[in-house]
Every structure is written in C-alpha cells, then in structure tokens.
C-alpha cells in the first residue's frame, strides 16, 4: 500500500511533462544515458528500487516540461521493454504510451563482437532489429548478432 501511495504522489507532482514508469531498476542509468538526460537542464526526479509486482524492483523518471518524439523514446525499449509513458498536462495524465523496439538502432549499442570494425575505429554503430520480443540486433558492419543479454549501451 505504501508504495502505491508514493507512486501516486510522484506522478502527480509535475505540472507538465513526461513520466516514464515501469523501468527495471537495473536499467535506470542506461535509460538516462540513452536519452542523454544528464545533459537536460529541466527539473528531473528519479526514483529507483521501488517495489513493483511486475518487475520486482522498478525505477521511475519524472521530467518537467519535457516531451519526446516516439522515435526518440522508443530507443529505451532496448533496456526497458515494458516502460510506460504518462504525458502530463496541467497535472493530469492526458496520454499513456508504451514503447516499441524500433527497426533500426543507430549509435546507442556497442557491437558485442570484439573483432567488429566498430570496436576498433571511430564509427557510429548501426543495427537492424531482427527480433523484437527477445531483442536480437544484427550489426550492419560485421553482420553478427548482439542479443538482449549482451546489449551494452555506449
């Protein structure tokens, strides 16, 4: 009951902006890095290790006056496939969204093949998503697969 109350308090605490909920606690810092939140000058609140029935421990991010285009936010599906977005306007949730793994991943993930040219020269990585459910990324350069378990955010 306690955590339910906490969650409600946090969600309702911003006037306008985006709340990203249901992030696995272990993926919080990856999400921060994927969305470059460390470079954002708006008010941001992070909560982590909150109890979640679905995820065990989850994290939540509240961003004031920040809205994402789908293409941008979908990138986090790689590490937080169950993340849910609440778009807040005037303290009210006006839209709920889920994230979807995009068809192509550019410049976020490191190729797991140490012999890939992208790990040896300055190259922006590029992958085609060959499986979305159990994420599998095929490197555009070395053609090897990087799977969910080995996804490392650059």
């Amino acid at each position: 009951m306690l955590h339910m109350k906490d969650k409600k308090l946090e969600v309702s605490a911003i006037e306008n902006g985006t709340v990203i909920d249901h992030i696995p606690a272990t993926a919080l810092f990856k999400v921060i890095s994927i969305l470059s939140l460390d470079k954002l000058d708006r008010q941001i609140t992070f909560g982590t290790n909150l109890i979640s029935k679905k995820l065990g421990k989850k994290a939540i991010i509240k961003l004031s006056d920040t809205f994402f285009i789908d293409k941008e936010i979908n990138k986090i599906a790689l590490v937080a496939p169950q993340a849910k977005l609440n778009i807040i306007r005037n303290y009210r949730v006006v839209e709920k969204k889920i994230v979807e793994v995009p068809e192509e991943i550019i410049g976020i993930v490191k190729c797991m093949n140490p012999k890939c040219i992208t790990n040896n020269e300055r190259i922006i990585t590029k992958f085609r998503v060959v499986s979305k459910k159990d994420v599998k990324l095929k490197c555009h350069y070395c053609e090897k697969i990087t799977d969910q378990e080995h996804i490392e955010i650059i």
Partner: protein
Amino acid sequence: MKNKSLVSITDYSKEEYLRILALAQEFELRPNQILLKDKVVATLFFEPSTRTRLSFESAVLKLGGRVIGFSDSNSSSVTKGETLYDTIRIVANYCDLIVMRHPLEGAARFASELTTVPVVNAGDGANQHPTQTLLDLYSIYKTQGKLDDLTIFMVGDLKYGRTVHSLLMAMSQFRTTFYFVSPDELKMPEEYKYFLNCLGLKYYEQKEFGRNIETADIIYMTRVQKERFSDPIEYERTKNAYVLKNKMLEDTRETMRVLHPLPRVNEIDQDVDANPKAYYFTQALNGVYVRQAIIASILGLK
C-alpha cells in the same frame, strides 16, 4: 551492378549471380580482353592472403588494367597508426576500384561507405568473402550444368567456416538439399538452419561422413582446425572422421564433384587428387574468370 560495391554475398540478387556466372563463362572462353586499359585497381591486403591477391591481380592484368597496393599491413602506413578511414580516403583518389582484405569484420562495409569508388571485399575476418562464394557457384554450375535442385554435402567445420555459410545463403535460392556433416562441436549454427526452415528447404545433419554419400552432387570439404575445439581429446577423436579418401568415392555419382576452398591440410587424402571427381584445383582457376566478371561488371565494362 555498375559502381555497386560487393561486400556481402547478400548484396547481389539471384539474377545478379547468374549474370556474373554468364560473364565468367565468357571470360573462360576469351580470358584476355583489354577492357581495363586506362583503369587502376588497388589491392589493399591488410592481412596476407597470397592466393586471393594473386587471383585478383591476375584477373586485372588479363583485362589489361594496372594494379597498385600492398600485400600486408607491415608494408603500409597502418604500422604508423593510420586508421582505415584515412587509408581508404587517400587510396580512393588513386584508383577506380578497391579490392580489400582486412582482419576485422565489417571493415569492407565501412570502407564502401567512405568513398564513391566501388569496393570488393576479399575477406573481412570471419565474416564475408563473396568472390569465393561466386567462384563456388560457378564451379557448381560448370560441373553440374545447372544450379537448381542439387544435393550438397557440407563437411567439416560448419560452425566457423565462413565459406559454407555464404555458400548456403547463395544456394538457398536454387532449391538445394543440404547435408551437414560435422562433429557436434562444429555443427551448423541455428540461425542458418532457421533460415532454411523459413524457406522450406530440406537439410539433414549427421555425424557419419559416408552415410547417404551416394545422393550427393557436390561434396564441399572444409578444414577442421584444432584450435576450434575446446577439448583437445575431442579433436584427436574426430580429426580422422572427416577426411575424404578415394575409396569413399566409389559409390558416388559419376557427375559428383569434390570442392574445397583451399588451402587443404589433410582433410582430403592425396589419393583423391587423381580421381576425376576431384575438382578443387580447377575450382581455384575458375576464381580468375569469376573475378574478371565481377570487376568488369562493377566498372560497367560488360
């Protein structure tokens, strides 16, 4: 295909394979055609591969072109720490076509994106070697008179062997039936079997070499390398199980041919060489015609 780089065997369609094979046939009949009179081809071998480099250079010279390049990275500015990016940007100014081999996977794709000069991949690590695959196709076509509905035995290291993977991808367009003959440790990876399943193609996996060999149109041999085994005892146990001996060819079809990307170590006994079914040395010669076809086609001269 004009100005189109050839990095991966999947860069070409079935029609393009057939076009290259038809051209190769033409070059086999008339190998010396002066089509590259004012053209310069750069062969950049960041790791040595004498056989492949000579085959490419022979193809260029037979077409009347000129060759520049290096045969290993010690004789280039790579040893001074130059990036591949810089090397390609510079060399692209000096030539009409780049042929490159590189130890890192994806190097040729990267190079092809840095320049408008077309790039032919002559091997990037364990990834791709598309001209080898096209010469394999040509050898199969020449010996069988067709590519459709054949039965191919792939033998040896099917896990790491890049030639068998590329050949599988290419032949999958011709209703091929595959037999995968390998020890457990070196089985064909799941992704390729999944690919064949999606296409509804038949394949069989077996550990015994000799079984069903009478159904084969092509036996494609590969090297079983000791360093691929996690257990050295397992290697000792299996190393002789995948050696082709002349006696094993007795019950095979008259038209069956044995292919091998070469170099071989001991996986084909020398007693096979004299058998008319041994085709691996001619296969290497076919490489020159196929490379002539690829170069002429990319430079838009055919």
